């Protein structure tokens, strides 16, 4: 009986952890095709500026937003400090500015629907029906 309680307790902890890390989805404007992890990493670090040979505009959530932190950690493999530091140097060596920041997932969705080439990331639960999912983690 005690073993069963311990097992249930451990399963509860695991499922709570899994729920905290909701899947991330990257959506793009309707004309964009599916992409891969390496290309996304390059897009959000300014090393490529196009997808499918058309101009791309990556969108970010603001620093401190939990979804942004999850995106940086799971897609770019960086902490907020590393990512901000990277763009700080890149800006001051004259090689561009960081992606535009929008305050909420809802703003990201709005911008993507109206901006050709726009790309943004969302938690799976926030993705509207019919969205163009170009990458799923």
């Amino acid at each position: 009986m005690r073993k069963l309680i311990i097992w249930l307790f451990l399963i509860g902890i695991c499922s709570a952890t899994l729920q905290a890390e909701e899947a991330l989805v990257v959506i793009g404007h309707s004309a964009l095709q599916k992409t891969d992890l390496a290309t996304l990493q390059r897009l959000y670090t300014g090393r490529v500026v196009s997808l499918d040979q058309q101009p791309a505009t990556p969108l970010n959530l603001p620093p401190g937003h939990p979804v942004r932190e999850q995106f940086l950690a799971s897609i770019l493999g960086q902490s907020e400090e590393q990512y901000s530091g990277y763009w700080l140097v890149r800006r001051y060596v004259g090689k561009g500015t960081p992606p535009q920041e929008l305050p909420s997932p809802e703003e990201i969705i709005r911008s993507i629907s109206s901006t050709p080439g726009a790309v943004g990331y969302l938690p799976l639960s926030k993705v509207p029906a019919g969205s163009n999912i170009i990458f799923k983690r």
Partner: protein
Amino acid sequence: MLAKFLLTLILALPLSSHALDLNWAGFGTAGYTISDQAYKYQRFIDDQGTFKRDSVIGAQVDLKFNQQWGAAVQAKLAPSDHSDSQWQGFLSWAFVSWRPTDDLLVRVGKLRVPLMLNTENQDVGATYDWARLPVEVYSIAPTTDYVGLSISKSWFVQEIEWNLDAYTGQATNYTRYYGREIRDGLSTPGSWFEKLDVRSSGLVLTARGLDNMFRVGVHEATISQPGGTISDIPYRPLAPGVGIYDLASGRNVAQLVAPFQIIGASVLIPGDIRLTSEYAHIKITSASRGMTRWGAYLAVSRQFGAWNPYVYYARTKSSAASLDLYRAINGNSNPMLPPALNNYQKLGADIVSPYDQSTSALGTSYRLAAHSLIKAEWSQTRTGIASSLIDAPSGGDSANQRINVFSLSYHFTF
């Protein structure tokens, strides 16, 4: 003139743009530095303390007209590059950029030479952890700015981004000299600044990963001045066993060609320890042939949360031939000669511009927030035969000196 033209071009471009994206950012450093010596080191540092060595404030505006076309202007206020007593506004960057494909970036305008690992961002102290970039290496190039063309080609090998940068352009800059007895045109000690036209070109290969960076570059600067440049300081006999090294008898050349090479790396090794090392070498065949020198440093740092302590050792040394020439001129003092001629020899020795010094530094940065940090550093510089980074006192020289320097600075971006 060209900079004005480019600025006009940058300001005119938005008029034809449909969706202008404008970003601006500012940066600054308030740095206090004091040494234990009465003479000046690196222009400003002495035992009275100074804010002038490291303090700077600036701003940058980035314009994006579309995904291909952009522009940037960076201006700063810092101590003048042609006066030790004044502050001056500088236009550090002013360029139009064109990125026709992902792997090609073309920039035209006022740009900074991709020399050492931190040359392009050297004014923004928040982008590196040292209180001051090692002067033994970062002072070696005749110019860090140019107005011209830069073409950058990039490609990826797995997660490493490779960049090949080619650039060419020209700039007017100033080289500072210090005469410990007399100076050019004046019979009192002090500094003066030679205005030079520098045309530079180069090819730089950089590899960047998430944690590591490598760079190798070959550059060439062609230096000229109105009226020409003196290329040597010949010895002129006045009587048996007595003579002077005479600048006025030096050969006048229209221009000098100065090749220089750099190699550097910054790598993260196991234990989260960062090793950074750079080496630079330049050859200048002029009366100031002490500027023919090499410089190198090795830095070790490790991040502990907000703290990033570091140590480094840096060294620079002029060529043996130029140090020999300096010693010969500096030692050519003869009681049979009038004092003015003996002072003239000291002036000649100072113009040779010898370098022979090393620095050991221990410091840390502490990140207060994402956009601000403070840095503290203690360093000790030791000179050998001489160092032109020291304003040597009258009646003495810069040989065998030991300078302790303490620096405290606050760096921010916004």
